[in-house]
């Protein structure tokens, strides 16, 4: 499967024979050295057990460095927000460590920082996650704080007002960020603002202004052990860590879990272009794509390989065409965002303003070209890059916990990570062609360009790609958020 796999025995023998004898020997530079058999990735088993209240735990022991990662993954996110409450999930997550149990926001931060630990709260469309990273020696002290933050937040009004002003200011600052504008415009173009995937998870100025602490309490109350998983990675055994976890999280009320449902979004059926004006911009932020696939699609590994060829690595077609061959950009890439529902496929780059139209043509040409048969060498390279580089995903406890999250989120078999390499290596050229034709279509894509409209619009129109819409930043992000400027704590 890689060059020289069948010659591995000879190669190894050469290395061994070389010890002490080949020093100073002239290297053979007539070609790249032959490689031996790639090493197997031998991950420790994932141990699954439940705390007395039913909270499932996935544990992977990793004893090389005395640190531990603990992540509580709760399957509640932005898709579960009531209508008009965009940003509620992320605000709830952000408020978890702003007062919990008997501690204030400052006391929580002081306790965690003093332990040399880090405690993060986050949310996205489908999850709310509380993550603790700590030296092993501080785990027992940090877990009770972690549990308070996850299970017993107090949502003080005063802190909510503070975070609301912070959030509204962040939304104001998006107006300066071409990438943030492009992301918002692209999501809306694909899904429409009536679908949760079409809205920013941070919410809008209007929805954020309307969030009340009772909304946050109600939203947090939806979380129960039945819709959560605790992921633990690090220098602990089950025997040592299970009692600590039970003491910290075992009294979480089992309750009744309720799962939200996600409406399907209609696929992009025409090619339309949205130009968002950013006067004076030195580059145009380009996003091209359509609705992609969900994580549980049977095409998952085939799509991963296909995307690696198109725009998933440095040597991918998009980066070679747009960066290495033409120098239009510092980097071009593409990706499928796999989610429980069908997330977006996007190809993107920041392009020098003067060549924006030329770059669009190249993007579309590459998306067309990937619909044809991929040469064997390119397929092998993409498969090897993805599969043989996979062990790097397990360099740290944090990265390992991250990789395990999809097992929790999608209820995947415990050997999913172990099987990944073989699944990727089994993908064929026919598979790549099939999924490219199934998921990509250069005639049916949304194209968003955030740039200096006066300079780029004539060239884009001349390409005759489809309907061209002109937008302002306010069209994309709404009117500038108004802040109560007088608010202070003192």
């Amino acid at each position, binding site marked *: 499967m890689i*060059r020289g796999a069948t010659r591995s025995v000879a190669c190894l023998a050469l*290395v061994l024979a*070389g010890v002490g004898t*080949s*020093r*100073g020997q002239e*290297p053979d*530079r007539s070609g*790249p*050295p032959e*490689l*031996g058999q*790639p*090493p197997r990735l031998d991950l420790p088993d994932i141990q699954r057990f439940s705390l007395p209240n039913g909270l499932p735990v996935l544990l992977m022991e990793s004893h*090389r*460095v*005395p*640190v531990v990662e603990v992540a509580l993954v709760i399957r509640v996110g932005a898709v579960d927000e009531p209508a008009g409450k965009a940003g509620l999930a992320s605000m709830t997550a952000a408020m978890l460590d702003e007062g919990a149990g008997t501690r204030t926001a*400052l006391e929580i931060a*002081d306790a965690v*920082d*003093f*332990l*040399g630990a880090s405690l993060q709260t986050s949310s996205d469309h489908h999850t709310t996650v509380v993550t603790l990273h*700590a030296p*092993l*020696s*501080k785990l*027992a002290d940090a877990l009770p704080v972690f549990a308070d933050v996850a299970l017993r937040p107090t949502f003080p009004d005063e802190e909510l007002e*503070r975070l609301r*002003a*912070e959030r509204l*200011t*962040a939304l*104001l600052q998006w107006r*300066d960020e071409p990438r943030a504008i492009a992301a918002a415009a692209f999501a809306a173009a694909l899904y429409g603002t009536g679908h949760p995937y079409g809205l920013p998870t941070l919410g809008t100025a209007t929805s954020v202004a309307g969030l009340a602490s009772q909304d946050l309490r109600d939203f947090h109350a939806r979380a129960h052990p039945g819709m959560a998983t605790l992921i633990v990675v690090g*220098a*602990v055994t089950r025997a*040592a860590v299970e009692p600590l976890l039970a003491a910290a999280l075992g009294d979480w009320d089992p309750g009744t879990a309720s799962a939200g449902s996600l409406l399907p979004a209609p696929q992009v059926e025409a090619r339309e272009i949205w130009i968002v004006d950013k006067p004076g*911009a*030195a580059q145009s932020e380009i996003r091209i794509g359509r609705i992609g696939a969900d994580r549980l699609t049977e095409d998952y590994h085939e799509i991963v390989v296909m995307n690696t060829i198109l725009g998933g690595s440095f*040597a991918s077609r998009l980066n070679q065409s747009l*960066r290495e*061959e033409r120098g*239009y*950009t*510092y980097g071009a890439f593409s990706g499928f965002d796999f989610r429980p529902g069908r997330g977006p496929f996007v190809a993107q780059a*920041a392009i*020098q303003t003067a060549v924006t139209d030329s770059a669009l043509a190249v993007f579309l040409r590459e998306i067309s070209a990937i619909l044809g048969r991929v040469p064997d060498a390119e397929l092998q*390279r993409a498969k*090897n890059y993805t599969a*043989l*580089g996979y*062990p*790097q995903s397990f*360099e*740290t406890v944090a990265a390992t916990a991250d990789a395990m999250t999809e097992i929790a989120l999608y209820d995947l078999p415990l050997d999913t990570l172990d099987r990944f390499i073989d699944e990727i290596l089994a993908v064929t050229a026919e598979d790549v062609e099939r999924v490219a034709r199934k998921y990509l279509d250069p005639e049916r894509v949304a194209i968003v360009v955030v740039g200096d409209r006066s300079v780029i619009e004539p060239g884009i129109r001349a390409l005759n790609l489809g309907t061209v819409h002109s937008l302002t930043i306010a069209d994309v992000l709404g009117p500038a958020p108004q802040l109560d400027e007088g608010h*202070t*704590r*003192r």
Partner: protein
Amino acid sequence: MRPVLLAILGCLSLAGATPAQDVRIEVPYTRFTLPNGLTVLLHEDHSIPMVSVNVWYHVGSGREVPGRTGFAHLFEHIMFEGSGHVPEGQFDLLLEAAGGDNNGSTNPDRTNYWENVPSNALELALFLESDRMGFLLDAMSPATVDGQRDVVKNERRQSYENRPYGMATILLGENLYPEGHPYRWPTIGYMDDLTTASYEDVVDFYQRYYGPNNASLAIAGDIDVEATRSLVETWFSDVPTGRSVPPVDPPAAAIDGERRIVLEDKVQLPRLYACWLTPARYVPGDAELDILASVLAGGKNSRLYKRLVYELQVAQDVSAFQQSGALGSRFCIVTTARSGHDLVELETVVQEEIERLVREGPTEREVQRAINQYEAAFLDGLERIGGFGGKADRLNGYLFSTGNPDWFQEDLMRYRALEPSDIQAAATTYLDEHRVILSVVPEGRPDLAAAREVS
């Protein structure tokens, strides 16, 4: 070597009976030097089946001359475009086909490169690194320079020109350092200088700075030390030694009093930068200023975060950092105003908190909290083998700065030794009126700047 570390770690109990302070942070290594002058460091870590090959060239943008700024970084890009026995484009293709990743970076002091590969592809990485170290010019042409010139110009547009506040760091360098000082110009370079860079510059720079005697090679990960040593000796044996490189001889840097500058930018909110010149990396004062940065702006309980962001809510964010360099460092405080607030307001609070630290010093707990976070960060550092900041990269970094690749424990000890009075002394000595105050304000709003004198 590895069992030594494991034995110590094995003593740690889950309940924390052994204080973290007793953990010795070490990265055992084997060191040797090739006849051509290349220093080699090998470190075994079999936790995952990958190897990181990491090369530092002891040259950065500080070696450039005015009119040719940005060249060290442009040269870094050119290093991936092929060499004597590696046709253009093959560097990435070969590595990706083996499951490898690679990257490089340039700063004023040095340029580093790494390949993270499955352990069976170690020899491929050695072939590629040795070939560009020894035979780069065989594959160079003016067209190579042109191609990467456009890419680097787009990197500058993406990371500086088209980014809010992106031009601030460039302006700070120009105002902190005198004419001719290696830290005065930005590593990314000026656009006109990038336009001027030529093929002849590539030849000259390579011959001047890219010899094995001005570099070091660190390999960490799933390796056998003896076999790897043999492979290194083979692959780098035909790399000719380079010219000897004289030490950098910078003009003295000092800010004559206070310098106030205002930059109008396409931003919604004004941002204040206050910067001082401070002691070089690992020189006394450097660690003190790291801890001072934590006391001022690390976490919710830090002095400036708590007042500006948490209590008064006049700022959206605040950060403080000691950016350490071989020839000297800069200490900066950066804070962004909320709507309706100007930078005079923010600077007043910044100044009050500096003066309070100078007068009273930090508390025991503030300093210990910051040290504990450094302590934990050193532990985390042992997890990463490759990439930027992984163990291979850090072995090369410590070698470059101290001559001792396994300087992890000594580095940590710099922090452990600090007392509140040391932090107070650093604030007193360094955060004085010799500083640069940069106000970045929305276009047409110079009235929001911290241009007035603040007493």
